[in-house]
C-alpha cells in the first residue's frame, strides 16, 4: 500500500532548505510530483532520473521498476544531508585556515615593529610638534610642493624626510632608508666612474716607485730604485720572530740561573 505523505505547501520552504541552494528544494518537488520526465538533472536527483532515462530507452521493452516513495525519499534526504555536511565542514576548515594565517601574519608584523614604548613616544612627539608649529609645517610643505612642481618629472626626486628625534637623549635621527641607499649608490657610481676614467684599464699609469726611479736608471752610475726595500713584507713573520726571541732570551736567563 502506498502511503502518501501529506502534501507540502507551495509556500517557500524552511530557511534550511533555502540555504542549501535550490537543489534539495527541487528534489523535494520532484519527490512530490512523482517521477517527472524532462527535468534538468540535478546531482541529488540523478539516481531516479537516470533510471527514468534508461527507463525511456527500455520503455518499449520493459515495465518501469517500482520504487516506493519512502525509500527514494529517504535516500534523497540522506544524500542531501551528506552534501550539506561536507559543505559545512569544508567551510569551517577554510575558516580555520584563514584565521590561523591571519594570526601568523600579525605575529610576524609585531616582531618587525619597534617596541611599543618608542612607537608611543613617536606618535605623541609628532602630535606635539604638529600642535606647536602648524604654520611652519604648512610653509615647509608648500615650499616642498613648489620645488617638486618646478623641478619637473624627469629628475628623480630623492627626498630625505627626517623625522623629529624623539627620545630624551636625542642620540638618533630617523631617515628614510630608501632615500639614503639611492644617494649612496649614486655617489659610489660617480666615484667609480672617476676612478675608472683616471686609473682604470686603458690608462697609462705606473707606480710611484718606478716613476721616481727613472732618473736613477739614467745616471752615469746607476743607482737602486727609490723604494728598494719593501718594508711591508712579512710583517707578521717579523713580529713572531721578535716575540720568540724575547721569550727564548727569558728562558735562557732562567736556565742560566
Amino acid at each position: 500500500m502506498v502511503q502518501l505523505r501529506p502534501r507540502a505547501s507551495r509556500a517557500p520552504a524552511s530557511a534550511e532548505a533555502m540555504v542549501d541552494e535550490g537543489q534539495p528544494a527541487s528534489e523535494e518537488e520532484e519527490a512530490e510530483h512523482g517521477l517527472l520526465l524532462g527535468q534538468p538533472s540535478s546531482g541529488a536527483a540523478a539516481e531516479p532520473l537516470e533510471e527514468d532515462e534508461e527507463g525511456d530507452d527500455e520503455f518499449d521493452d520493459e515495465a518501469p521498476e517500482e520504487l516506493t516513495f519512502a525509500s527514494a525519499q529517504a535516500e534523497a534526504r540522506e544524500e542531501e544531508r551528506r552534501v550539506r555536511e561536507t559543505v559545512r565542514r569544508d567551510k569551517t576548515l577554510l575558516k580555520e585556515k584563514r584565521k590561523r594565517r591571519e594570526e601568523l601574519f600579525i605575529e610576524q608584523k609585531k616582531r618587525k615593529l619597534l617596541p611599543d614604548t618608542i612607537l608611543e613616544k613617536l606618535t605623541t612627539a609628532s602630535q606635539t610638534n604638529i600642535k606647536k608649529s602648524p604654520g611652519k609645517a604648512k610653509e615647509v610643505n608648500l615650499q616642498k610642493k613648489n620645488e617638486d612642481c618646478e623641478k619637473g618629472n624627469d629628475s628623480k626626486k630623492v627626498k630625505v624626510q627626517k623625522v623629529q628625534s624623539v627620545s630624551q637623549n636625542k642620540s638618533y635621527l630617523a631617515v628614510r632608508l630608501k632615500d639614503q641607499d639611492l644617494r649612496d649608490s649614486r655617489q659610489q657610481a660617480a666615484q667609480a666612474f672617476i676612478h675608472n676614467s683616471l686609473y682604470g684599464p686603458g690608462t697609462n699609469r705606473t707606480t710611484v716607485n718606478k716613476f721616481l726611479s727613472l732618473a736613477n736608471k739614467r745616471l752615469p752610475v746607476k743607482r737602486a730604485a727609490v723604494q728598494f726595500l719593501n718594508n711591508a713584507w712579512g710583517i707578521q713573520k717579523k713580529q713572531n720572530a721578535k716575540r720568540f726571541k724575547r721569550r727564548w732570551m727569558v728562558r735562557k736567563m732562567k736556565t742560566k740561573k
Partner: protein
Amino acid sequence: MGEFKVHRVRFFNYVPSGIRCVAYNNQSNRLAVSRTDGTVEIYNLSANYFQEKFFPGHESRATEALCWAEGQRLFSAGLNGEIMEYDLQALNIKYAMDAFGGPIWSMAASPSGSQLLVGCEDGSVKLFQITPDKIQFERNFDRQKSRILSLSWHSSGTHIAAGSIDYISVFDVKSGSAVHKMIVDRQYMGASKRKCIVWGVAFLSDGTVISVDSAGKVQFWDSATGTLVKSHLIANADVQSIAVADQEDSFVVGTAEGTVFHFQLVPVTSNSNEKQWVRTKPFQHHTHDVRTVAHSPTALISGGTDTHLVIRPLMEKVEVKNYDAALRKITFPHRCLISCSKKRQLLLFQFAHHLELWRLGSTVATGKNGDTLPLSKNADHLLHLKTKGPENIICSCISPCGSWIAYSTVSRFFLYRLNYEHDNISLKRVSKMPAFLRCALQILFSEDSTKLFVASNQGALHIVQLSGGSFKHLHAFQPQSGTVEAMCLLAVSPDGHWLAASGTSAGVHVYDVKQLKLHCTVPAYNFPVTAMAIAPNTNNLVIAHSDQQVFEYSIPDKQYTDWSRTVQKQGFHHLWLQRDTPITHISFHPKRPMHILLHDAYMFCIIDKSLPLPNDKTLLYNPFPPTNESDVVRRRTAHAFKISKIYKPLLFMDLLDERTLVAVERPLDDIIAQLPPPIKKKKFGT
C-alpha cells in the same frame, strides 16, 4: 748658545690630501683651494701667500667644483649632490642645498655673479638664482644623455657651453634648449674604443669654445655654426683643466702628466691684426695629475694630486721684477699639527681622522758636535686615537704634564684623561662636554695643566678649569664688537697670568686670566699672524706675521719693547724677508731670556737679543764658524740671527729642556711615496 741634543723625528706619517679645485677671486686677491678630503682652504695671495682660513673636511663630501660669486660668496658642489655656501666670517658652512640631480660634477657662476649653474650626473643643467641669504632653484635646461662634466658661461650671460662624454652642447640660457651639439673625436686623427671625456670647456666672448678632453687634445670650436676650428694634440694623457684670463688673451691648461701649458693669443706676423692661439710655455712643476688650474692677472696657479699648490707669476705681467715674481710652491701646512708635552717627552700628531701619541726615545751616549748618537730606547707608539664620525679633526692639543688630550671637530669637543702606570697608559674620556666648545679653532692648555683655553669659531674664548677627572667652565670672553670674528691663534704665559688671542683682522687681544678681563690690544698689522708665544719671566709677547716680520710686545708695560723698536727701525735682512714659508712655532729657553727660538719649514733660528742686528751687507746664513779663526773675526761676523738649515723640511721644532731639542721632519720623498700612481713616462734607455 750652548750645545743641544736633538731628537730627529721622522715617524710622523703626514700625507696631505690632493688638491681638487682652485678658484681665484680677483677683487680680494684670494684663492680658495678644495682638497679631496673635503677641506677648503683660503689663501691670501697678497699676504705672502699665507693660508688664513680653512674649513675642515668631511668624509662624505667629495667636492668637484668651487666657485666665487658676487659679493665674496664661496660655493662648492660635490658628489653628494649638495651645493654648499661657506660663511667666511664665522668659518662654518652656512647651508647645504640638495640639487636633486644626483652627484654634481661642475658648477659655474654667471659673469654678473647673480646666477649659478650646476651640471649633474643625470645630464641635467640646473639654474639657481643667488638671493642675498640663500640660493633658489630657478629652472632646468634641456636634459642631456650623459653626465655634464664641465660648464662655462659666455661673458654676456646669454649662452653656456657644457662638456659631457663624447660631445659638447651649447645652450641658450633664455630658452634653456640646446642650440648646438658638437661631437668630439675620440682620438686625434684616429678612432678609439675609449670614450672621450671633455674635462673642461671655456667660452670666450667672440664665440669660441675651447675644450680639453681625455684624449690629450685642446680644440677650438665656433659656437655660432657648431663646427671645429682648430685642434691641438698636446699630451699623451688627459688634459684635465683649463682656465682663461680675464682679458681673454691667454689661457692655461693642465695635463695628467703634470705639465701645465700656457696658450697665448699672438699676432700672426708682427704687424698684422690677425691673431691666433699659440702654445707658448710648458711648465713641469708637478709629478702627478694637474686637476685644476686658475689664471690670475699676473700668475698661473695649478694644483693636483701631488698636493703642491704652485703659483707661477708670469714675467711679462709682473711690473716690478723682484723676489715676488719667483715661483711659489706651497707644500707644507701653515699651521702646527704637532703638540708636545715637555715633562713626559711625548708628541701628539694630528691627522685628519685620528691622533697618534708617541714617546720619544732616549739615549745614554754622548758625543761631540755633529755626531749621531745610538738610541738605547726606541720611540714608542703609545696611542692611536680614532675620531668618531666622518668629520675631520680641526685642532688638538696635549697638556704639558701629559695627562690631558683635547681635540675638536665641527660638531663635538673631546677631552680625554690619561693615566700612566709604569709603562702602560690608560685613557678615559670626559663625557658631557658642553656644546659651545665644539668647532674650536685652537685649543691650548695652561703651563700647570689646570686650565684649558678654547677659541671657538664664533669669536668667543672659553676658559675651562680642569681638576682630577672633571672640568668646570670658568669664563667666556665674548668678541668685542658686534662682528663675529674667528679667533685663530692662542698663546698663554707660563705663569698663567696672561692669554693672547689673535683674530683674522683685528689686533692681538691680551686678556688677564686672573681677573678675567681684557688687558690690552696690540695694534693691528695688515698681515695675518702666523705664530705667537709669551716669554717666561719677562712676559713679552712675540708675534710673527706672514710677511716675516717679528714683533716683541711687553704685556705688563703695554708697549713694544726697545729691542723690537730697534729691529723695526733697522729692518730685517733682505734674505730673511724673502723666505717662502711662514714661521709656525715660537718657543723660549727657560734659563736664557735673551733667546727666542723660531722655525719655519726650511730653517730654524735662535735670535739672540744681546747680539747686534745684521744689516743688509752681512751674511745672514752664517756657516758654523771654524774654531781656528781669531776671536775678532768671529765677533765681527756674529749677529743676532743664528740660523741652521740642517733639519729640513721641518714641521715642528721645540725646546724640551735646557739641553734637548726635538725636530720633527717630513722628507718630501716620503710624502710622494704614498701618493696615487702617476702617468707612465717612457724615457730612452730605461
